[in-house]
């Protein structure tokens, strides 16, 4: 479905070009749910923006649904890290803007229903007709989520969508997300900081090393069956192993760059990912 092949991102700064993301390889299968985890400022949003088509690739290829990806479009729904609502429209109008765009063949009543459905689901049934200035930070973020979900995109790109939310609301919205994902077989790439969230939601967790020149540090497959039950997963002994693995990576190993470590041994999941890319891994070549 989505193939990222040796993606590079370089920004021109006064002090010369700065490479933010280096050699980012990832292959997502149709309907796969992957999360991207890494430290603040390592380049997660940058990768997501490139996939969304909002930021040019400096190097590398991106293949989306069998085609070289073109510019941005509503087939890739995106929830931005900062909600990005248009302040002169109400929450409802913000959602309607996109809904009108992709469901232009549907009747007006159906479109309205669509926007109302998703706004209610994210818990804004009462605040639908408020302007963003009158909403709390978390509510704005939820409008952004509703806007992306309502388009039923083929691919969802989520940049820390639940960052500003309390754990209860977060749990509710995670369920909503999973339901949407299950129903539409949406390929999802999500950025998160929350290790538990990553394990609960995803099929694979992609860990990024620290920036600058961030790359994929490790990949972890989450073996739990779907549909998942939060409680059961929490009680599963494997859960703590996985959690430990992620936390160790974030705390201790995130600065280890695979391409520069001669003794780097990719984990089985990562090795599988590497094998899928045509070019051999730099260390193997050396």
């Amino acid at each position, binding site marked *: 479905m989505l193939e990222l092949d040796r993606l590079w991102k370089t920004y021109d700064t006064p002090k010369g070009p700065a490479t933010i993301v280096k050699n980012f390889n990832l292959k997502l299968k149709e309907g796969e749910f992957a999360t991207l985890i890494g430290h603040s400022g390592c380049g997660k949003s940058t990768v997501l923006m490139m996939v*969304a*088509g*909002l930021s040019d690739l400096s190097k590398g290829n991106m293949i989306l649904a069998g085609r070289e990806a073109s*510019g*941005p*479009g*509503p087939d*890739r*729904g*995106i929830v*931005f890290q*900062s909600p*990005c609502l*248009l*302040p*002169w*429209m109400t929450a409802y109008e913000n959602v309607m*803007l*996109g809904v009108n*765009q*992709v469901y232009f063949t549907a009747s007006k009543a159906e479109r309205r229903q669509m926007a109302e459905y998703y706004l209610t689901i994210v818990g804004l049934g009462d605040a639908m007709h408020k*302007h*963003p*200035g009158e909403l709390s930070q978390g509510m704005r973020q939820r409008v952004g989520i509703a806007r992306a979900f309502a*388009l039923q995109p083929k691919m969802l790109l989520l940049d820390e969508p639940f960052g500003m939310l309390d754990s209860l609301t977060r749990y509710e919205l995670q369920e909503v997300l999973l339901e949407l994902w299950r129903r539409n077989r949406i390929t999802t790439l999500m950025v998160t900081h929350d290790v538990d969230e990553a394990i609960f939601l995803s099929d694979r967790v992609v860990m990024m090393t620290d920036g600058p020149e961030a790359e994929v540090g490790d990949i972890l497959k989450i073996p739990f069956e779907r549909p998942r039950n939060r409680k059961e997963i929490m009680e599963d002994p494997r859960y703590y192993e996985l959690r430990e693995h992620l936390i160790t990576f974030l705390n201790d190993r995130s600065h280890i760059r695979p391409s520069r470590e001669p003794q780097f041994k990719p984990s089985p999941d990562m090795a599988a990912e590497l094998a899928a890319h045509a070019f051999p891994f730099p260390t193997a070549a050396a």
Partner: protein
Amino acid sequence: MHLIQRFKLDSIFLPLGAILVTCFFWYVIAGKSVITEKVDDFGDKIKVTKREGLSADLPTPVETWTASKLYITEPFAKRGELDQGILRFTWMSLVLVAQGYAIALIIGTPIGFFLGLSKKFTTAFDPIIQVLRPVSPLAWLPLGMILFSGVKIVNGDGRTTFGASDAAALFTIAICAMWPTVMNTAVGVRAVPQDYLNVAKVLKLSKWKTLWKVLVPATLPYMFTGFRLSLGIAWLVIVAVEMLTGMPGVGGFLWQQYNANSYAHIILCILTIGVVGYVLDRLMSAIESRFKTA
């Protein structure tokens, strides 16, 4: 209760005091009529009126009032082409300003958008704009006369209703008042946050929709600042234009009264121009603040 709280007494009395002080200074420097009795060569007693003071010809506030009373108390009277109530003149000027201003906005706003959207357009036209911007209305008017010398719309009685001077006047107002709108719109368009444009891109909004749903609302606050400044300039220009073309209006009246040596009316005109300009500005800021989005 609320009103009193909001408009504290200070805000009424302090300006009032300042106005009184200004009137006093005006009175001090104004010329006063001094009537002296004199015996003339024939032995008759005659009264001689002489004006004395720092600025002998400047009428005092009271004289101004008595001389202008008629124009103010009968603001809509029409006694002759150049002898009409002050509001009638104001109305004429306003109509002219409105026309010129409308032209300025209609032309200026799109130019502003082009400047804001396209780097190439900016590089190409910026020098021309920078050169034309500071040109005074007095310089534009003759050019307008030449440009539109052929314009003549005649009504049924064979009287010209819209001639070269009208066209030139509109041209001058429009071209002078346009620049703040152009510049502010351009700045506003450039300041549209990238986030908003990203939203438009992700939703694949058409060019037209992006313009109306994203760019225009996001630039509105800037545009209205431009509109307000433009209106100020249009109102400034009108006086000069009317003076030069001799059209009826506040400016025309002012010039005519100067030529007729009735100085009190000049002050009346100046005050009218000032008050109207202030009211227009307030109106525009009221509209402007309505469009300020959080």
